[in-house]
């Protein structure tokens, strides 16, 4: 699925990284535990989270995630947007809550990270 389709499905607003909207992704993880992302997430997937702080962006960066979507209307401040811009990562915000966001993306063909795919 292309990121611009993800954006449409979740009515998400792009905060930085528009240049990645044409990229294809195959997996996503919905996660408020950063250590879970670092342990289980597949790289190049989308990370959906309800947390907003610098370590969320650092985690996505270290785990080679493709992009971050902040759910339930969470919106990072300018400092975090600048950091994401620095590392060339697409970040978006959507009003859609976590459970619904994941459900919509899953129903449209995105896969999760099964434990057997770890590392």
């Amino acid at each position, binding site marked *: 699925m292309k990121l611009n389709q993800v954006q449409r499905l979740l009515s998400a607003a792009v905060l930085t990284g528009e240049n990645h909207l044409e990229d294809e992704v195959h997996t996503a993880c919905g996660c408020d535990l950063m250590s879970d992302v*670092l342990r289980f997430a597949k*790289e190049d997937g989308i990370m959906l989270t309800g947390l907003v*702080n610098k*370590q*969320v962006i650092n985690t996505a960066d270290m785990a080679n995630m493709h992009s971050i979507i902040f759910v339930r209307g969470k919106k990072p401040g300018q400092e975090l947007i600048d950091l994401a811009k620095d590392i060339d990562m697409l970040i978006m915000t959507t009003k859609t809550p976590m459970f619904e966001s994941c459900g919509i993306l899953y129903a449209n063909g995105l896969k999760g990270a099964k434990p057997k795919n770890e*590392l």
Partner: protein
Amino acid sequence: MNYKVNFEVEKDDFEKAGEASRKIKKTLKQLGVDNKTIRHIAIAGYEGEMNLAIHSDGGEIILEVSSEKINLTIQDVGPGIPDLDLAMTEGYSTASDKVREMGFGAGMGLPNMEKNADFFEIHSKVGKGTKIQMSFNLK
């Protein structure tokens, strides 16, 4: 060793925490290390860096690169870990609520560092500090 650099990590500085790991990742990319190995090092280094900021009284990360392998040493000046077996158990954490609100404190950092490294050794002494040595083989 062909290349060696160290990064200081301060206690409770969650503004700066993560910067050492980002610099390490950037350095390894510039050195032409393969992406899979970089990801292992970035993840293990970042969990270690967060542990320094969260649990230690301050410490440092030392990156050493040679043609065969990459060494990552993460050491601090205290307070040390009283029960290493317990600390290495998945799910065990003494992190505060503030740290949990940030998305950390799942008790998976140390086990995940061990999983990502080809060699992992941890030593700790209460009142002295903790030292973790990790190596990552280069093909």
